[in-house]
Every structure is written in C-alpha cells, then in structure tokens.
C-alpha cells in the first residue's frame, strides 16, 4: 500500500471509519524491513522526523519520536483511575510501548496478548527504544493469541485492561463489538478500569461515538480523553476509559498524591493533563451527543 516515491512514504488512504481524501506522507532515509506475516504486511522505515516508524498494512502505527504521547495516555489514564492495580492485561500492543509504561507501576503481573508474533519480533529488533527491555521483565507474560479467544478464559480477574489495538477493520472489527466488550467486562475484577484507543475526533467521529455508546451500555463511568499523536496525520486521538467505579469521585488531589509517590519519569502524562484531557469542546460534546 505504501509506495516509495522520491523517498517520500505515502500512507495508505484506506482508513477505517475515515475519509479517503486525506493522508500523511513522510520523508524517509531508508526502508529497514519489509515482509508479510500471516496477518499483515509489516514494514519499518527510518524517517527524517519521527525516527524509525512501524507501518502495518500501509498505516503508520508508532514511531520512536512520538510514541510516548500515545503509550503514556493509553496506560496511565486507567492505571491512575484505578485505586491499586495489581493484575493488568494488554490486548494488542505488539511494539511493547504499553508494556513498558504499565511496568512503571508496582504491579504483580501484566499479560500482553498479541495475535501477531512477528510484530513483537520486529519491534524488539528494530524499535527497541519503544519497549526498553520491557519484554524481559519478570512480571511480563507474553501470550501469542487472539484477544477475542483469550479473554473468554478469564472472569473477575484483571484490574486494568488496555486495548492497544490497530484500527478496527477486517477481522479486528470484532474488537470493538459489544460482545467483546462484554467479555472484557466479565474479565475485570471489582473496581476494574479499561482503556481503549478509539480513533481520531476530526475524521473518525463515528468510530469515537460507536465505541463510547457501546461502553456506555456496560459501564457506569465512561470518559473520553484526547491527546495529539501527530504521526497519525489524522489529528487528536481519542482514548476512552470505562469503569463501574465513579470517576467523578476521583479528585485531582487523589491522583496527584499517587503520582508523586510513584515518582514516574514521564514526558506527556501528568495529573493535570489527566483532567485537562477530559474537557471536551462544545462542538464535540454536541457531535457525540454526550449531553
């Protein structure tokens, strides 16, 4: 899908729930890796501005230079909403960035369930700065499996579940289905929290809205957070967090205190960003019919 033209890499126009009239392009130094796994085309390019980037089926996934915004937000939002997370599950997240962020917390164990073994191998080999050795942590259990199947074996078990998935098209569509979210909920312990990467506001508003509505059917607290992931070229990204605990009762002071205690070395997330990122502008509240 992605063609090399005068050393410019053009992203595929096929963006689920999106428009075909927009795309991103990056100037590349060189192509580092390219092959097909059983699931997708996997490519790694060295780019001028984002460092090395991972491309799956022509869609930009993550980059050395700006992965921290995405990974800090998808992980620390649910980890700080939760009172004291011990058992964590990541579905997807083959690049290891989420694994690395979760392991910054004093957890007992984190399971990472990725369907495509090859993505893990390639990420570890060519993009090691994203996982920073997290795959070797004793608390990390890597499972090569379909998240849809894996989750069915668990009940009342995880404190935090992070859905670090690529865009829902083809078989991955099932990963935003109500049925799947029901299985996710069943696998959560009391007080559990989930987070979902849920598309870009400006181009994929239907996707944002679909995910929100489905989670709202199952959880009493559902909050949309926003953060800019510029690699995606589609703008501000939606991270939806859901739980049966009452988010409104969680005060900034509360999170500030926990954050200080952990003394995390982060670049984007902070307790202030935690709350500021959940304040949506009027036009989005109206478009999403959140009122």
């Amino acid at each position, binding site marked *: 899908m992605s063609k090399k033209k005068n050393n410019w890499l053009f992203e595929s126009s096929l963006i689920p729930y999106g428009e075909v009239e927009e795309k991103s392009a*990056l100037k590349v130094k060189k192509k580092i890796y390219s092959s097909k796994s059983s699931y997708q085309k996997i490519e790694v390019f060295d780019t001028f501005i984002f460092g090395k980037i991972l491309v799956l089926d022509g869609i930009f996934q993550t980059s050395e230079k700006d992965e921290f915004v995405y990974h800090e937000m998808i992980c620390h939002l649910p980890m700080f909403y939760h009172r004291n997370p011990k058992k964590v599950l990541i579905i997807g997240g083959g690049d290891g960035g989420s694994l690395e962020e979760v392991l910054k917390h004093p957890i007992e164990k984190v399971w990472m369930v990725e369907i495509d073994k090859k993505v893990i191998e390639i990420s570890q080999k060519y993009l090691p700065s994203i996982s920073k050795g997290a795959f070797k942590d004793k608390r990390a259990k890597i499972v090569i499996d379909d998240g849809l199947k894996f989750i069915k074996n668990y009940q009342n078990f995880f404190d935090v579940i992070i859905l670090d998935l690529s865009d829902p098209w083809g078989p991955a569509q099932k990963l935003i289905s109500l049925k799947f979210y029901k299985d996710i909920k069943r696998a959560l312990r009391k007080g559990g929290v989930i987070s979902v990467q849920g598309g870009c506001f400006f181009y994929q508003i239907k996707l944002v809205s679909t995910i929100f509505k489905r989670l709202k059917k199952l959880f009493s607290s559902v909050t949309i957070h926003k953060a800019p992931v510029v690699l995606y070229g589609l703008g501000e990204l939606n991270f939806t967090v859901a739980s049966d605990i009452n988010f409104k009762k969680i005060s900034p002071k509360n999170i500030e205190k926990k954050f200080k205690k952990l003394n995390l070395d982060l670049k984007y997330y902070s307790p202030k960003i935690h709350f500021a990122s959940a304040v949506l502008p*009027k036009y989005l509240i109206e478009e999403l019919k959140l009122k």
Partner: protein
Amino acid sequence: MRNEFRDNHFSFLAKLPKNSQWILEFTQGPSSAHLFRVKKKICHQKTPFQIVDIVKLFHYGKTLFLDERLQVTQADEFLYHESVVHPALLTHPQPQKVLIIGGADGGAAYQVLKHKSVEKLFLVEIDAKLIKLCQKFLPEINRGIFKNPKLKIFTTDGRKFLSKGKEKFDVIISDLTAPLINPPSYLLFTKEFYKIIYDRLNKDGIFSLQADSTDHLNNKIFTSVYRTVEKVFPIVKALQVFIPSYDNNWGFIIASKKYNPASLDSSEIKRRIKKRGLRGLKFYDEKIHQSLFVLPKDLREAIKKQKKIIRDNHPIITLQ
C-alpha cells in the same frame, strides 16, 4: 476532472505528479506532510505580496493557501479564531478598542465583534488584494464582517502603523502568517515589535498572538516567541489547541499587563460571556478555558530550555 487540474498549482512543492489532484502541505517541518485531495479550484491570483490560492478540499471545504501554505479552512477555522480571540478578550473586563494585525480572512474580526463591549475594531493588513479575495471567496469565514461599521481597515504594514500612531487599545491580536522573509512578517515577531505593541496598549491591556506549533518535534518558533514576549510583558500564558488542518497542536500566547488569563474562574467567564452577548461559540466556553492552559511536561521543559530572544537583528524565520 483531470484537465482541470493539469497545469495548475495543486501539486504544491513538486512531490506529486503534475496532474495530481492532491495538495501536499508540510506539517512538522519539511520532512512530514499532509495530503489533501482537491475538489475544486476557486481562485489563483498574485498580489504584490504573495500568491493566493483558494480551493475547495473534500474534508475541509474552502481553504486559503498563501504562497502554497495552508492558512485557514472553512471546516476548522472556528478552532483557531475562537482561540486567538475569546480567551484574551474575556480576560479583559471591558474591552472597547481592539486591533488585529493581519487577519485578512476576517475570521478573527468576526469573533471580536461578537463582544458587545467592543466599540471600535481596527484591522491592519498589508495586502489589500488579499482582503478583497477573502471577502469575495470566503464569506463562510468572514460572514459579512467587512461591512460592519465598527470595523476600520488599514491596508498598510502592521509595524509601521503601530510605530506611528498614538491611540491606545485594550486588546491587540496578532493573527499573522508564520515569520517569513517575504512578505517580511518576521519583523512582527521580534522583541522590538512587542515593545511597540506594549506601548500601544492601555495600562491593563492584553496582547494575544498565534504562535505557531507546540508539537514536540517542531516548537522552536513557539518557544522562542514565548521567551521573547516574556521579556516585554509581566504576565505571559500559553494555551494550545489542536488544529486538524495544520495537523499540529497550535500555540496561542496571551501577554498581559495586569490580568492573568489562567486564574480566571469558570463562573466569572460564564458571567462575562453572558454580559457580552457572546453567541454561537463552537469550541470555546467557560468549561474549557482552564484546561487550555495545561501544557504537557515536555512542552514546559522545551520553553524552559529555550534561550533565544528574537530581535530585529536576530530574527526567527519559519522553515520551508
């Protein structure tokens, strides 16, 4: 369709085939870009200062390019214009005289004149022909504002205009292109110019400016402007807003002599919005005000680390 796009200026910057229906716009510097598919060509003209293209894009509607660089789009102009105008105007308890530097598209003027308190608005724009073209082809953005009797237009260089006059303003808004050599907008991004602005503001005056990208890969202009404005004004606060057509978080700086925009609480903002008769806001409101000033750690650190103070003889010029 194809003929219409041949031999025109839509494949900006020659990265695309000549007959392309796409426009390539740089985003985080010259090595990353966003491509927009063009629906219709509306206007292509040269003025004494720049090349003006107005096209219709599929997702963004009517869009203005100056010298092949995207300036404003019909679909997301409200994000930009509400952000450059309302946080500053509401920080002032009673803004009556306001001046805009640049802002030929009229979008900022439209937002300013929503405030009932404003009696007089000056718009100082160097390019008279650009105003004419925007008036004719972008009515969706300026909404007839050029006919408002409160608005007075001066087609001259902003720096010259402000250096000469004596009249003082409550709020001055800088709605300029990025700092360029030609037209020489870089002279409107220097400490010397900001001093001129300071002198033309009333004792409790406020200066609001668009200050380029705050993205962590591309925030040199923003951080330098911030540091420079800090040398001139006692209170300086930055806000950032994601602008989809720029594919960037965008920085706006509010520099103030007396009032602190970040400490304005939501009930007071709500009261002022009502009193001013502000209507039809799509982005800004009292709920979002505070959150706009929360900057991520990497940006706060980038500001701290920035040592450059922009001066006439040490200017900053945009890449590309």
